């Protein structure tokens, strides 16, 4: 591991910013991390599922409890990637058993509920300390970054929970009905095992694993970045790395010599007198090349004791640089193709008759369609014309409240029949004849909108609403009498009956009904 090759910009950060740095580090290599994750964690998950297949409700809890194990492979990868050497698949797989076994028991037992889990993990796994020394070290680090490590765990458990609920809510409607628990019965039953379908529990466990896979690497990365930030602050890691790089550069010798020489030359050059920026440009090969040319110029100048620089050439060179490149964007635009249109009309002058035929066909078709439409309308005119008129007979009920009210079922002279029935002492029959007769008239002639589910009360309301005051008034009296006789079984007086018969209004003008 070469510290100089660091691929992370270290500088003292606020804790939250360090967390963000961790997220950025994970995002950079998310694909590889997830691949390693899938190869190491998924087998464990399958194993857990197989062991707990009888009680899937416990799977998320066990998966959550085993989290310290999952963290180690991503951390191993991240710690190597931070220093420029991303471990390959085979190498990681070789390290896998060692990573999981190291400090495995404490991490899964008494350290499991530690709130600074992801912050302390790098200290445990990467620093090579053990026992009391490691504990002391973690304590020291936690004095500076422990609080942020704690809030980190809080934030990420919150995010994980939110994402889990979000995923479950988002996919809930896709579940088959058999897998959806009976929410209303849940509180009453209180027996989770029996009232929630097992499919639902399995689905919840799968969602949980998916979310853990999504979020946990970021949690590990954030903890690692917090650890780096902590060491940066209390130990000056960023300064150390910069010094190491500087030492490497200075001791490599030749480069330093060249820079010093160039700076010297640059200082003596009338064109670039004392420009310290040129000396700093050692990392940029282009600039170095330019500096080389400059050196040549200076040498020439010194030999000829006069500076000869061709302004035109310099300008040309400067204009060739990428900053002065003119970017062009090609885009296609639709232009009407007049040319080809003309051509086609020129090529086919004799085909004008086609147009006539086409027009003729069009008109024929139009006429045919129109006449067919007219024919169709005429043939089916009853559907359109007689609609409003024919509605009432279609809808007119034949039986109301268990009584047949068709015209055919009634005698021709209803009043006479009623009087006859009254005379024999059958008051109920008499009133029933009158009532049925009046309903029959109202429904069939007056088209009062009475439906077959209406009661006496409803019929009366409809009749009153339909207007025709005298008829409505009569019908009201008749209904009263009929209800009294039929339901209350109270007799009606002779005078009343006589009045009902005399006032019978449902007669066609100029003859008996």
């Amino acid at each position: 591991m070469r510290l100089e090759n660091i691929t992370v910009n270290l500088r003292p950060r606020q804790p939250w910013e360090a967390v963000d740095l961790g997220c950025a580090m994970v995002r950079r290599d998310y694909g590889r991390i997830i691949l390693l994750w899938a190869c190491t964690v998924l087998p464990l998950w399958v194993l857990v599922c197989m062991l707990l297949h009888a009680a899937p409700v416990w799977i998320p809890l066990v998966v959550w409890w085993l989290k310290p194990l999952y963290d180690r492979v991503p951390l191993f990868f991240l710690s190597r990637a931070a220093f420029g050497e991303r471990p390959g698949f085979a190498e990681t797989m070789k390290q896998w058993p060692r990573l999981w076994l190291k400090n495995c028991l404490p991490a899964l037992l008494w350290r499991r509920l530690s709130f600074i889990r992801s912050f302390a993990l790098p200290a445990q796994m990467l620093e090579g300390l053990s026992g009391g020394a490691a504990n002391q070290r973690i304590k020291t680090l936690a004095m500076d970054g422990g609080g942020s490590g704690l809030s980190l765990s809080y934030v990420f458990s919150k995010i994980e929970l939110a994402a889990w609920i979000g995923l479950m809510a988002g996919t809930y409607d896709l579940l088959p009905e058999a897998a959806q628990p009976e929410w209303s019965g849940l509180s009453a039953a209180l027996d989770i095992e029996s009232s929630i379908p097992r499919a639902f529990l399995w689905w919840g466990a799968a969602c949980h694993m998916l979310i853990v896979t999504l979020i946990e690497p970021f949690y590990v990365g954030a903890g690692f970045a917090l650890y780096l930030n902590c060491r940066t602050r209390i130990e000056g890691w960023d300064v150390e790395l910069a010094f190491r790089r500087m030492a490497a550069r200075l001791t490599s010798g030749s480069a330093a010599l060249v820079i010093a020489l160039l700076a010297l030359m640059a200082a003596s050059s009338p064109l670039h007198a004392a420009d310290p920026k040129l000396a700093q440009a050692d990392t940029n090969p282009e600039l170095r090349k330019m500096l080389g040319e400059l050196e040549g110029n200076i040498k020439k100048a010194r030999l000829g004791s006069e500076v000869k620089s061709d302004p035109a050439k310099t300008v040309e060179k400067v204009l060739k640089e990428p900053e002065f490149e003119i970017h062009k964007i090609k885009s296609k635009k639709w232009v009407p193709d007049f040319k080809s249109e003309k051509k086609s009309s020129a090529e086919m002058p004799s085909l004008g008759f086609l147009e006539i035929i086409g027009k003729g066909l069009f008109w024929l078709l139009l006429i045919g369609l129109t006449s067919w439409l007219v024919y169709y309308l005429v043939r089916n005119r009853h559907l359109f014309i007689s609609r409003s008129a024919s509605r009432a007979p279609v809808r007119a009920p034949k039986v109301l409240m268990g009584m047949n009210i068709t015209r055919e079922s009634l005698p021709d002279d209803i009043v006479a029949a009623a009087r006859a029935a009254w005379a024999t002492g059958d008051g109920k029959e008499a009133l029933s004849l009158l009532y049925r007769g009046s309903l029959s008239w109202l429904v069939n002639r007056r088209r009062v909108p009475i439906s077959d589910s209406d009661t006496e009360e409803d019929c009366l309301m409809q009749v009153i609403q339909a207007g025709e005051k005298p008829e409505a008034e009569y019908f009201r009296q008749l209904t009263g009498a009929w209800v009294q006789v039929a339901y209350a079984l109270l007799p009606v007086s002779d005078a009343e009956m006589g009045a009902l018969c005399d006032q019978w209004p449902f007669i066609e003008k100029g003859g008996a009904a």
Partner: protein
Amino acid sequence: MAAARADTLQSVELADGVEIQLRVAGVAVRSMAYLIDLLIRIAIYIGASILMFWLLADVLGPQVTLGLFLLFIFFMEWFYNVIFEAGAKGATPGQRVFKLRVMSMTGGPVTLAQAVMRNFLRVVDFMPFFYLTGIVCMLFTRRFQRLGDLVANTVVTYVELPHTVVAQVPIQAERLAPSQVLTREEQAALLQFIERAPLWADERRLELASLAQPLTKAPGPEGLRRLCGMALWLQEPEEKRATPPPLKGAAYSRS
């Protein structure tokens, strides 16, 4: 190599070829700020419901009061963030607790239109529930933007510069020009060293100074003294101009 380094500073190139650095804030701190805003809103709703039903219910009747209360909730939910973010501070109370603010991608304050757009799209980020879309989106975009941010071209950034303790103790070292020309990064490292050295233990200072031995050309405390001298020399450009460094002096004398 340097370009590929992971960082939380995100550079944005503006129209004039000017590059600015944004200290973008990620999902963790933003979720905390959101939580605080949520708690504030809930507290306001509780307070408002007590006040409105106590004062207005007798005058307007319970139905009208309920309607007004629901209207109030509607406007709070949709415009709470908009008003604060488009305001002078550019941040909601929750964001101010964590020293955050919403910025346009160009580094300027957000316009009202941007604030409206990024907050109305909250609904999309909320889907399917509890901001799952927003969380995933923030985790996987370079500037930690959720969909609303991407559409409105905004970022959430830290307001305060990182808190660094600058040494208050006088340093017992004479100003000394570096023996070699240093890159900008190395100069920055030297300045960081002189600023933060008082925070470290003596051993650590010596350890770091010994790493810079190729520059100081001296081991132990002498190397540390020289290193501090060079850092002091870098700190004060006025002095630098008055007495040019020996290297450049040599160049002048030669020409």
